[in-house]
């Protein structure tokens, strides 16, 4: 079984600070991590490999630094890692990203593609489904568990707002995974040392058969017109009172708003 895992290296948004003066993100010094939803997908692929035997290929599109992430994925147990990297790919929206990923994926064999549901820098949840569309494959999004897999089909548990569904899809297909679906394993010492002997396959624009007008910033239909941070206005009365008076005042307020009836 050949499993492709799509992953993205992202800035750790929990560590992100805003420059209050300029209203821009301070990117310097923000650590990068493997996107959490993707990492759960990686773990699910490795579990399939443990149980049934599989060839796990990690694919990412990104700048050259993404090699660090791929090394870590080798340390976890990836069999192959591929980096799609080219200035022509950069600045892509989800549509252009999916076009690029699909152009590469069309050149390899696979039975199952696992992508994270969404990346924490953009939170769009679009690349998985859009890649599935470009490959003309069925999709199941928001997957919380893989229940069973055979040569022709996969059965998964999908998380919805208030319940779950057990869903069967024919293979090959694309599933997108939630970060809660599987806790990623640690890298092993042997894995780490092996990782440096393994080759990261580098793919650039010239290696792909793709229309240059459907990729990268230029090919992206959506454009960022502007970015801004939110200004918080101080408009409230902030009172320093003792506990009892505070409580009384809150109850009065609720009474005024007609909330504590009868």
């Amino acid at each position, binding site marked *: 079984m050949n499993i492709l895992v799509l992953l993205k290296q992202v800035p750790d948004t929990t560590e992100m600070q805003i420059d209050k003066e300029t209203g821009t993100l301070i990117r310097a010094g923000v650590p990068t991590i493997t996107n959490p939803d993707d990492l759960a997908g990686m773990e699910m692929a490795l579990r399939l490999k443990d149980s049934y035997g599989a060839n796990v290929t990690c694919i990412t599109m990104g700048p050259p630094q993404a090699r660090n992430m791929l090394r870590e994925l080798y340390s976890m147990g990836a069999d192959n890692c591929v980096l799609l990297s080219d200035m022509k790919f950069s600045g892509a929206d989800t549509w252009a990203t999916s076009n690029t990923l699909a152009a590469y994926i069309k050149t390899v064999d696979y039975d199952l593609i696992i992508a994270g549901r969404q990346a924490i820098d953009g939170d769009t949840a679009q690349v998985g489904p859009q890649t599935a569309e470009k490959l003309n494959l069925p999709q199941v999004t928001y997957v919380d568990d893989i229940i069973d897999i055979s040569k022709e089909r996969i059965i998964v548990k999908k998380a919805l707002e208030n319940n779950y569904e057990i869903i069967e899809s*024919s293979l090959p297909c694309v599933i997108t995974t939630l970060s809660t679906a599987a806790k990623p394993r640690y890298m092993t010492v042997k894995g780490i040392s092996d990782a440096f002997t393994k080759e990261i396959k580098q793919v650039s624009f010239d290696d792909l058969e793709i229309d240059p007008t459907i990729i990268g910033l230029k090919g992206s239909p959506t454009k960022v017109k502007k970015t801004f941070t939110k200004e918080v206005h101080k408009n409230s009365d902030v009172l320093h009172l003792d506990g009892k008076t505070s409580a009384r005042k809150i109850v009065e307020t609720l009474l005024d*708003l007609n909330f504590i009836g009868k």
Partner: protein
Amino acid sequence: MNIADYKDIYVFCEVKDGKIHDSSLELLGEASRLVNNRPSLGYKVVGLIIGNYDEHLIDDIGYFGADKVIYLKNEGINHYSTEIFTSLFMDVINNDKPDIILVPATVLGRDLAPRVAARCDTGLTADATKLDFDPENLESPLLYVTRPAFGGNLFGTIINETKRPQMTTIRPGVMEKLKKHTGRQFIKDIRNVDISTIKDSVKVLEVLQKDHMAVDITKADIIVSGGRGIGDNFHILEECAKMMGAEVGASRGAVDKGYIKKDHQVGQTGKTVRPKVYIACGISGAVQHLAGMEKSDYIIAINKDPEAAIFGVANIGFVGDALEILPLITEEIKRYRERPF
């Protein structure tokens, strides 16, 4: 593609538990607001519904703001299917040429919208929190879509000038639905569709309910919400909420610590709420939390730290210990309820 051929605002209407889901009704409200703000375009609000439903359901789409409802009907559709819905949606796009398509950013909407956008090779902006027509050109139908990025640390305004339709998903709870108006006139366009040629290789085998009753705090009039400052004393907050007839909300800080279940989480990665009163206790007021509650009608904040950001969005703030104040509120209301007259 001739962009000028595309017109009107289409809202994909999702049915949940036998009703048009609130998130779709909110989009009908927002679409009405948009067309009214730019009457020169002459755009209509069109609701799109796919499946096999009672007529009264279709009427609700009109009563909540659609000028026209397109109902793609087939008795064989008893469940959402990515492929069937995408194919049928595409037929409408090819045939009716919508300029703008709004889809709720629910689990279903976030499965369907990217697939449709990719099939018609247009742009899609995810999880919008604000929509406006181009503010610089008052004749323009170009949609300015604002959404959070980088975990809510930054906002971006996104446009799509080159492709049609302009598609976006919108977070549930952000937009306002109109009052239901049963006298509203609207056109019903019922189309019996054929699905026999659509290849669907995904099937739902079973629908499981979650083991605990998931609470729905989005419907509450009052929410008493706790953060990390409450610690493992959520019972104190719950008691107070019960006395008020309120639901309990929480910050992610409290959820991550395991003080309370995720269903209660308010914010960017939790629920968006707009109750009549939101009482934030021991919550610092991170942007991601504010994103989920700042549209509440009236906000009361209790925090030990006079500099806490939550005070910036509160209508009234109390500097103090929530664990001291909450039981006193409970007592005060009890006393009020038990008053002789």
